[in-house]
């Protein structure tokens, strides 16, 4: 599905769910812009522990149609709030191992302040609003759904 906001990014979907590993180099190339002096990126990685438990892997599930709508809405809000030129976000779904990248957010702007703020805004809003859920599998063989931080 094409994003309703693709005009900003030359037909590139701005928020995507991906079942495959995130290609951060390609995303960065799509986000860089000759008019921009600042590029800020956040990468979220699967770590080997959470709340005192040793983590083996994570399984992410999403409500895809609503997740893409909400993710695109968040990026549109970032364009309204901050003086940025381009923004992209990709979130993995499926089973991820320790050391896999789970989420990538990149923002280009003429100046750094807007790029930092927009990147933070997009990440925080995606984590709290986009219907994606994380099931942790621990090294003791048990698993459980992660509650909102």
């Amino acid at each position, binding site marked *: 599905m094409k994003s309703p906001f693709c005009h900003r990014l030359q037909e590139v979907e701005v928020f995507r769910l991906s079942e495959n590993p995130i290609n951060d180099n390609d995303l960065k190339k799509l986000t860089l812009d000759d008019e921009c002096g600042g590029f800020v990126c956040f990468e*979220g990685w699967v770590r080997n522990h959470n709340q005192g438990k040793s983590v083996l892997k994570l399984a992410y599930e999403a*409500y895809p149609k609503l997740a893409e709508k909400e993710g695109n809405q968040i990026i549109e809000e970032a364009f309204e709030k901050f003086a940025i030129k381009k923004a992209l976000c990709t*979130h993995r779904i499926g089973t991820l191992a320790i050391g896999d990248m789970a*989420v990538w957010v990149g923002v280009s702007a003429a100046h750094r302040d807007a790029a930092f703020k927009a990147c933070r805004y997009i990440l925080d809003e*995606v*984590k709290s609003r986009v219907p994606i859920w994380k*099931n942790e599998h621990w090294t003791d063989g048990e698993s459980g759904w992660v509650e909102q931080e």
Partner: protein
Amino acid sequence: MKNIKVLFFGKLKEIWENNHLNLKTESSNIEELYSELLKSASSEPFKSSIKVARNDEFCDWSTTIEDGDEVAFLPPASGG
């Protein structure tokens, strides 16, 4: 009677032991549908943390449901 498809995500799938249900209901809105569904829940979820969606759009608990609707119950997001 309306035919409604109900979707459960995250820990709600475990509470209803299903990721979806197809049911016939006389409930007129999502609040009533939820009360009906609680009868088949293995435990009672923390309702105030649940968001609801009708046909791929977030909506209110008071939203009217119609024949053929897809209603989703969403626990708090935990992506990132």
